[in-house]
């Protein structure tokens, strides 16, 4: 099936099988390997991207469902070579260690802050609930999101 969609601002058209997931489409068809796959039950959130401005777990969206939509992946977040404020905050506050959950965490954090520019600690923790991190204990991820909120509001 032919699909047409926008990925990180570029129009792409590809032929995919109906069972191709969005995460496989991004990784295998477009070589956007920043979107990671950490589970098969939509539980870990490593594959999170935004679809028409909303965070989705791309392992449970079929590529054909993304037809006509606008997808932003971790590769499309920074502009002109400078990090997005959320990426910047993760770097500044050591919000990542092995880096594997990081793309999904960052995309989820972007979504949290879009919907709620001034979240409390508990709101951040609740918002990150769909994303596993096994390295950081979430401490510095939550701090990173708090600081990203400040810099986005500044």
């Amino acid at each position, binding site marked *: 099936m032919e699909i047409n969609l926008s990925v990180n601002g570029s129009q792409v058209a590809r032929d995919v099988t109906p069972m191709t997931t969005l995460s496989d489409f991004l990784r295998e068809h477009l070589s956007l*390997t920043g979107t990671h796959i950490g589970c098969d039950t939509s539980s*870990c959130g490593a594959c999170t991207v935004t679809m028409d401005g909303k965070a989705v777990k791309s392992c449970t969206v079929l590529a054909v469902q993304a037809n006509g939509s606008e997808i932003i992946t971790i590769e499309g977040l920074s502009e002109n070579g400078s990090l997005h404020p959320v990426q910047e905050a993760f770097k500044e506050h050591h919000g990542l260690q092995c*880096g*594997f959950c990081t793309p999904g965490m960052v995309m989820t954090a972007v979504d949290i802050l879009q919907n709620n520019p001034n979240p409390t600690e508990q709101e951040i923790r*609740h918002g990150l609930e769909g994303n596993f991190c096994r390295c950081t204990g*979430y401490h510095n*991820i939550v701090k990173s999101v708090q600081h990203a909120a400040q810099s986005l509001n500044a």
Partner: protein
Amino acid sequence: MTTNYIGQPVKRKEDNRFLTGKGRYTDDIKLPGMAFAAFARSPYAHAKINSIDTSQAANAPGVLAVYTGSDECGNFGVPCGWLVHFKNGEPMKEPPHPLLAVGKARHVGENVAVVIAESLQEARDAAELIEVDYEELSVVTDPRQAVQEGAPLVHDDAPNNTVYDWEIGNPKEEVDAAMDGAHHITKLDFKNQRLAPNAIEPRSYIADYDVNADKYTLYTSTQNPHLIRLLMCAFVLGIPEHKVRVVSYDVGGGFGSKIYHYTEEALLTWASKKIGRPIKWTSDRTEAFYTDAHGRDYCTTAEMGFDADGKILALRVHSEANLGAYLSTFSTCCPTYLHGTLAQGCYTTPLINIDITAAFTNTNPVDAYRGAGRPEMTYILEHLMDTAALEMGIDPAELRFKNFIPPFDGVNQEGYQTQVALQYDSGNYEGTLRRALEMVNYENFRQEQAAARENGKLLGIGFSTYIEGCGIAPSAVVGSLGARAGLYEVGHVRVQPTGKVSVFTGSHSHGQGHETAFAQFVADHLGISMDDVEIHHGDTDQVAFGMGTYGSRSLAVGGSAIVKSLDKIIEKGAKIAAHKLEAAEGDLEFANGQYTVKGTDKSIAFGDVALTAYVPHDYPEGLEPGLDFSSFYDPANFTYPFGAHICVVEVDQDTGKVDIRRFIAVDDVGNVINPMIVDGQIHGGVVQGLGQALLEGVSYDENGQMITGSYMDYAMPRADDVPFIETDRTVTPCPHNPLGVKGAGEAGAIGATPALVNAVMDAIAHIGIRDIQMPLTPERVWRAMQA
């Protein structure tokens, strides 16, 4: 230049690539002509394989090859890396661990056949067409049941499923006699439950055989690429090591589960030559639950005897440790040399006897998991301590102060000789507890707790003062204890002609930030900018050799190897500088990136010395050109980090839900190169420890089926399960390595678990409950409160 990187929270060099989606994990790699593997796995925990019919699979679309244990690969097996002996001196039982099951399958998920096809989907579809005639056998999954007479036998040549029995410490009769004379004995049964390490990156391998060069490349998500190469070449496939390159670029967490040389690594490498194509296999999460090495799984009975003043008189521990269906690379040393040897804890206990029986069962192999034996022992000691305090009516902090080994720095005072073989390097155990008590404001807490209880709120506080042994060494000692490898590390420093520095380390980062922390001390040693230092790891063709990263060894062992090479560089540079400055070498000093003739302003910059070394026109006679040294560092001893963790919880009386109100971690990991990274390691370790206490546990049903085989069923901490972790440090340098560092990777996971369990017990102590087995789910706590 004057540099001061050591001790600074320098932002990580590696972060930009991870934050922009440019990490290089194994599954991100695509090779031309790459084929894909999928496995047929045993659906039974224990079953005889009568026959395997692969004909349909072999004829399925896209299939390139199908292999079973009847093929050549069935003759190859992966080895165990540590030989432990029975008490009677006989070697442990070490049955073969074939790459694909031969004759019978011994746990659910064991690889029975592999299909290699043009696409992943074709490989998976064909794997489902493999027909296996299984004959189900009786199953045993519990280690205590496994060693009973008459239990189903996992391996015919391991009677009573016993891998080994093993003992350390003082003679049992002496310990028994001391127990008999004790004023009070605290006795508990423990279950250090089985955990799934669950690195978020699933295991992934690509094997690529190049027929023209007769050379293999294995891309693998491992913590120790050289060790994989050594094991696979010398002990599994019998292929020449110089014809094999093992590469692990970025690895998405390991926590011990990626030490193990897995069967799939060797199988794909072998098959790649067979079919003449690169082959990729990436585990999905279900496969990860069924095939990754698990951690913990000990059944223990432990007793601590005290005199009337609360001084510990003796400790007696008996455990059955579950090693699973096969021996993983380091499983055998976890319940012994990484566990029994830590039974002294921070205390002056004069008599200790530790008795371990290791068992085969119809479960996943177990291997090192963050702490590897030490969290299990710490849980035993620290849970006994708080329970004893409660039973004897002594404050748990006070009980510890009564029993701590007094401070010793390993320089002015000797190291502390334990009853269980080890000699601690340096420690100040009361120092970390005093600081933690200040942070929690202990006196106020007890008042708050009493007031809350009046209002029906159950607050509790729990303590854990742990010690651990890291950077396990030296090679000669571990060799005498059964290790089949040395435990040194290699550090290679290549100064480029322009004075820029490339460092090649045999240790490996899978999140620990080597590219930053290692560059910090290298830059400080040479007085150059960190931007002029690049750290390389994870490629056996680049790095001379190495033992990899586990046991919190990277900085203590790997860092020290680099320091040895830096010393050689500075020494050789001095000869070049002396020649250029027309001074005696002994009159020079090296500081801030300059060689200076003492007491003069005559100096030469490090970069100029480097250039001279590579353009040796005006050069000392007889001196080799170049500035490039590699060193092996074999430590004199383990390092012994320690700390005090305090947890404050509130238990919901109606639901049994445990809310972690505060977690305080005061750790002493020796000198600190990058406090930001050390804090991050502590946070992550603590939350894994809290995961064991509160949420996690692999469960098998009576048929040996894992009933926690997905993230829907296995509960791991999420962001809203835990609070911010309050950290602080004391610094007691390691006296025997050049950086004075001890290691921080496992501390959190070792200290945290008992602190939380003790806090819950403290919260509900007034009801008369002494113990609840982990994980302390709301249901378990609620049921205990109803009893």
